[in-house]
Structure formats: structure tokens, C-alpha cells
């Protein structure tokens, strides 16, 4: 509408736009109230936990709160290559004394020990001196503390304390990528033989990619059959596809364990038909093979259903037209049918890939050491090491990865082209 057009008024003289807004307001409120429960649910169960996860993953306020005077004094510590001035020692002493009175000194020792090995010993030594009241607060604290242990005279330990000063840190994220902040604050790589996370990330991507590929090659013909068979057969086939959906994930994974183990049914069958020797049964479980087989089977319906719903809408006369116009069956398929199924392929692949990238139970049960994924590592830190902030950081990295994939997909195919049903 150009600005020159006259404002349209209703018969009462109210501008049409105002009148329209008024008329639609009630409907808008109604619509909002209808989605409000879901919105609230999402905020409570999704947005808030993600926010909390993020806070946890970067939160490093523990030491900041424990050593307020130290960090205040450290602001005046200028030459970082030399030991800090007396004020820093005093601040640290006072902070530590307070912690010792509140029985909190142990936590600090452990936390600092993570930052640099050897802190536990020297803080305990300081604690004993304070307890025995061996420290003269009127004299130079720098000298007295330095005398306690040679490590107190090592500037690297003081630098380590200083590194814990900022209330927030990205160190968990670096750890997730097998990197850390070196003593001088730069980012360094973990030794090659200790890099486990990068391997896990790559393996997760690899397994998700191949599972998606297997699902696609197995799901496409099934979906095509489903869409073209007469009703009475296609219903039966549909039930076969959906049956796994109705069975517990745990039960399905357990049955794969029965099938795939070395004394399992599949191996027995191979031995029976003479494919493998009885004393040389292949390991199909507790490795990648098991993860591939079980995950492909479990995620197959997520590929079949979007494909099916798209194929169902493709008129069979299109293939006939392709053939009657002179295309061989293959040409008719490749030039006519296949391009029309791309929205379904996109949806199915995206769905399977994203589900596979965060899969947990199946790899945990049948994956063994070489078939576990990053989510198993996250669970390990949640349950065993109790390092929740690290688990949160990796969870967020996973989420970011999924969003990146979604973004790339949107750039390549366009989300508008996805059809889920």
C-alpha cells in the first residue's frame, strides 16, 4: 500500500486497521491461551534446563568466592613472572584461614589440585601450620609461607591460582575437544595418547553418518513398496515397520544381544552353513558392528515414515507418463520419481542423523569399547565422575553440533522442503 492511499474508515469512522485489530484481538488471546500450557511446559522442561546447563558448564565461581581478598590483592601483581607481592600472600592467608575455620579448605585444595598437581599437599601443610598457630601474622607472610614448601616459591603455582580468578571459564569446552589452558593462558593440545574426546566425536559422526546411510538404503525400497502395494498388503507391511516402535527400546537392544553374541543365533547359523569355523566365530557385538546393526534397525522407522508419507502423494501416473514418453524404467525413476522424494529423504535423513548423534542406550549395551558414542561419555561424567559441568559442556557442544547440521541442511536443501507427513 502506498502512503498516498487514503486511510479506509469503517462506517463508525474508526480506521479499518484499528477495527480489524480489535476484532482479531479476542481470537489472538484465545489462540495464545491454547498454546500457553505447551509454552510453559517447554520453558520449564527445555529452555530453563538448557540455560541451567549452560551456566553450569561455564560456572567457575567456587574459587572466586573462596579467595576474594587474594584476587583483590592480585590486581596489583604486575610482573607475573615473579612471585606476587606481600599483599597477595596476606590476602591468601586470610582467605584460607577463614576457609579453615569453616571446614571448607579441603574443597579448595582439591579444586586447585585440578588446576595444577601438587596443590593438595602444600595447602594441607599450610592448614596444619594455621591450626597449630605457628604463623606469626605480624611478620612477613610471604617469607613464612615460602618457607613451608618449595612449591610455594614456584611462581607457576601462584599463576595457577590467578587463572581461577574469573568467575566464568571455557575450560570445560576446551577439555571436550582435548585442549586446555596452558600455564601462560594460551590454548594447548592434550598429549596425543590421551586424546579421547576427539576420537569419540569423530566416531559419533561416523556412526551417525553410516547409520543414516544404511537406513536410507534399506528404508527407501520399503517405503516405496508401502506406498505402491495394494492396501491389504501394505497394511501388513506397515505393521511390520511399526512393530519395533511398539516394543521397548531395551527389549529390542537385548534381543540384538542374544542374536549377535559369539554364541548367539546369528553366529550359530554362520557355523551351521559353514561360513565360519566354530572356533573362529566373529565378534559382532561390543564393537562398531553391533552398534551399526542395532541402531540401524531401531532408527529405520524414522526413515521409512517420512519417505512413505511423501511417496504416498506421488501419483503413479507420473511414472507411467515418464515411461510412455520414452524413458526407460530407470530414467523414469531417476528423473521423475526420485526428485519428487527428495523432501522425504531430507526429512528422514535429518531425523535419523540427529537421533543417531545423541544415541545412548543401544551403544552403551552393544557398543563395547569401540562402539560407544559421545553421549555415553556424557553419561559417564554425569553418573561416575560427577563432573556435571563437564557433562553439561559436552551436552551443549552436541546440541550446537546438531544446530549446525540443521543450518547446513537448511542452506543446502531448505527446511521448507522437509515433509514429515
Amino acid at each position, binding site marked *: 500500500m502506498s502512503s498516498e492511499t487514503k486511510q479506509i474508515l469503517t462506517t463508525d469512522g474508526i480506521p479499518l486497521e484499528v477495527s480489524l485489530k480489535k476484532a482479531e484481538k479476542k481470537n489472538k488471546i484465545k489462540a495464545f491461551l491454547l498454546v500457553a500450557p505447551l509454552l510453559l511446559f517447554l520453558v520449564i522442561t527445555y529452555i530453563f534446563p538448557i540455560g541451567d546447563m549452560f551456566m553450569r558448564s561455564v560456572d567457575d565461581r567456587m574459587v572466586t568466592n573462596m579467595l576474594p581478598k587474594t584476587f583483590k590483592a592480585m590486581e596489583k601483581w604486575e610482573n607475573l613472572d615473579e612471585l606476587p607481592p606481600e599483599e597477595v600472600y596476606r590476602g591468601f592467608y586470610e582467605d584460607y584461614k577463614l576457609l579453615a575455620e569453616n571446614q571448607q579448605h579441603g574443597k579448595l585444595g582439591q579444586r586447585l589440585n585440578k588446576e595444577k598437581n601438587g596443590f593438595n599437599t602444600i595447602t594441607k601443610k599450610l592448614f596444619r601450620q594455621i591450626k597449630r598457630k605457628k604463623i606469626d601474622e605480624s611478620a612477613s607472610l610471604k617469607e613464612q609461607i615460602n618457607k613451608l614448601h618449595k612449591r610455594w616459591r614456584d611462581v607457576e603455582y601462584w599463576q595457577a591460582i590467578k587463572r581461577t580468578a574469573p568467575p566464568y571459564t571455557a575450560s570445560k569446552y576446551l577439555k571436550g575437544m582435548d585442549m586446555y589452558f596452558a600455564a601462560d593462558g594460551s590454548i594447548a593440545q592434550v598429549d596425543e595418547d590421551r586424546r579421547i574426546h576427539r576420537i569419540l566425536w569423530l566416531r559419533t559422526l561416523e556412526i551417525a553418518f553410516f547409520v543414516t546411510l544404511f537406513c536410507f538404503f534399506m528404508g527407501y525400497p520399503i517405503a516405496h513398496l508401502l506406498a505402491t502395494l495394494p492396501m491389504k498388503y501394505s497394511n501388513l507391511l506397515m505393521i511390520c515397520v511399526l512393530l519395533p516402535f511398539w516394543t521397548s527400546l531395551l527389549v529390542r537392544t537385548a534381543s540384538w544381544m542374544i542374536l549377535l553374541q559369539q554364541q548367539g543365533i546369528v553366529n550359530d547359523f554362520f557355523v551351521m552353513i559353514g561360513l565360519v569355523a566354530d572356533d573362529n566365530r566373529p565378534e559382532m557385538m561390543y564393537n562398531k558392528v553391533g552398534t551399526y546393526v542395532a541402531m540401524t534397525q531401531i532408527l529405520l522407522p524414522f526413515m521409512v515414515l517420512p519417505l512413505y508419507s511423501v511417496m504416498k502423494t506421488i501419483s503413479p501416473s507420473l511414472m*507411467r507418463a515418464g515411461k*510412455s514418453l520414452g*524413458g526407460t524404467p530407470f530414467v*523414469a525413476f531417476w528423473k521423475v520419481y526420485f526428485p519428487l522424494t527428495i523432501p522425504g529423504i531430507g526429512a528422514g535423513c535429518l531425523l535419523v542423523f540427529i537421533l543417531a548423534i545423541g544415541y545412548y542406550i543401544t551403544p552403551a549395551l552393544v557398543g563395547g569399547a569401540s562402539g560407544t558414542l559421545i553421549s555415553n561419555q556424557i553419561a559417564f561424567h554425569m553418573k561416575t565422575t560427577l563432573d556435571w559441568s563437564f557433562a553439561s559442556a559436552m551436552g551443549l557442544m552436541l546440541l550446537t553440533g546438531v544446530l549446525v547440521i540443521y543450518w547446513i541442511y537448511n542452506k543446502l536443501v531448505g527446511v521448507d522442503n522437509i515433509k514429515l507427513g
Partner: protein
Amino acid sequence: MSKNPEFVKFDKVDKSYDGKVLVVKDLQLDIAEGEFITMLGPSGSGKTTCLMMLAGFETPTHGEILLDGNIISNIPPHKRGIGMVFQNYALFPHMTVYENLAFPLRVRKVEKDEIDKKVDKALSMVSLSGFETRMPAQLSGGQQQRVAVARALVFDPAVVLMDEPLGALDKNLRESMQYEIKHIHESIGVTVVYVTHDQSEALTMSNRIAVFNDGKVQQLSNPAELYEKPVNSFVAEFIGENNTFNGEVIDIAKDKCKVKLANSEILANPISVKSKGEKTTVSLRPERALINPTDKMDNMFTGKIEEVIYHGDHTRVRLNLLGSSEFILKVPNSTSNLELKVSQDINIGWNSVDARALDPK
């Protein structure tokens, strides 16, 4: 070059889908080169099955189909070189109009320049030049239909099949497309096999019409003959409107017979009755019965008007005549119009030659 009168030949073709019921029975049909032939019939009469067998999507259960003297029953659809227009157009939705038309040429490995030329020509034939880059979804129903026709013709097929191509269009558009397809056929002389259940469409467009019922061709003739001289009561009933009398032949001569109805007798033209005592259905076109005839006619009766329905260009009058209250008259809307009123008595007359005594219903 003389035209081959047996360009397409159905030779004793049977088709059954389930091994129990024959959908097409012993079909014998010759189609001449350059002819526009329509398969007309109610749904389930086997006409579409015949078309699908010709296109190669169904195989005959028995018998052979010949194209230009060659048996084609074992040739797959893509090698038959038959163009086809589908009921719902079947345009490829992910291709532009140009790509749709280029498809049959590209699979035939035609040169790029040649493709451009042919697509151009085909589009101008259906007056859609300039629509090359549109997607099918951006076209109206009529335009999609034209693209489908152009696509079926662009690779110069010997035969073009059309499976109820106008079924989805509204009435006015359907009529204008009928003429357009007819003109295209006349200008390029391709053989067209057209399937429809719409009799007016068949009468408008075809050189010959094959009326299908119950898997059999009931009558194969040109439109005029089909309408004027139906050979059995199904055709008489299916094509156009039709007044019927059921009765028994009581006297028969060379070109006249006397038929006894429930309480009167009429003279009729014996078509499928041969002897006295046969049951028959007499068929009379509504426009062949005259009101208040001035000349002497073979049959003259008085009927009572039951209903008058105004139709614009004509008025339909339902009469109670000879014990039946379903007798229909069509009165043209002219200035010398009669005053027609319900429950008025009027005189009706018709000649025996127009009253065709056919097989009993």
C-alpha cells in the same frame, strides 16, 4: 501415401485382472491412420483397460495388439512411441514447462537446438508460447492440460492416447478445449485414441466412436450414425435422449412392424427384430415426435402434459402417453411458441421409420 486402415488393430483381445471376470471380451477393433477415434462407455465398461493395453501398462490376457502391422504386446511402454495424455495431466511437478516438454526428446537424445525448436513449435501449437519457465503449479487447469497435450505430441508419436483428459475442467473450458484438440488433430493428422464417458464430447470430436459396454464394443460408427441409427437399446439409451416403449411384435413386413404395447399398437422400424412374437424395445428420439402434426403420420396419439421444464433454448415437456408418463418432448424455443400448460391434452405424431424396434431391455 495411402492411409493404413488397420494402423492400430486389436485382434481378438481378452483381458481379465483376476482370472474370473473378463473386463474386455473378444475385442476386434481397427483404427485407421490419422483417425480420431473415441472409446465411449460408462465406467467399468473396459474402455480405459483397452487404452492401457495399447499404451503398454497392461498386457492382454489373450489376443494381440498390432501397431502398423507389428505385434506390440511384448514391447515395453517406453519403446512403443505412443504419446499419452493422462486424466490428471501427470505433468512432472518439479520441472518447468520447457523441461516437461523436453523430457521425451532428451531421453531420445535429440540435439539441444532441435529440442528448442520442437518445444517452441509444440507450445505455439497449444498457444502457450512464453510459458517455458513456468512450473506446472503456476498454471491454471486449462493451461496444464494444454502442456500435457503438447508434451504428448512433441516427439511426433504415431499414435496419441488421451484418457479422459478434460474430466477435471469446468464446462466452458472443456468445450473450448474440445475444439482445440480437434483442430490440433486436424492440422497435424496424428492418430488419436480418446477415452471418455461424456457422450457430447465424443460426438463433438470424433471421426468414429466405439461405444463400450460390459467389455464389448456395442457399436462402432461415426457420430451421426451412432445418434440416428443406434443398433441396440444400450446405444440408444446411452447416446442422447430416448423415449422407449416395451412391447411385442405382432406383425412384421420389410420396413415396418406392428408392436403391441400394454393397451395400444404402434408402427415401428424393425432393426433387430426378425419375426412375430418377439419382445422388443422401441426407441424414439424426442425431437422426432411432433406436436399437432399437419401431415399424416404413421403414429398419432393424444397425450396429457405432466410437466413443463424451461431450458432456455428449448423446453422439455413430459407427457403421459400410451400408458407411460415418461414420454419426453423437446420443443424448440421459437417465436411461434405454443402455449404449453400442465394437464393440457396435445396431439403427438411420429413416423415409423424413426421408431426403431431394438432388442428388448
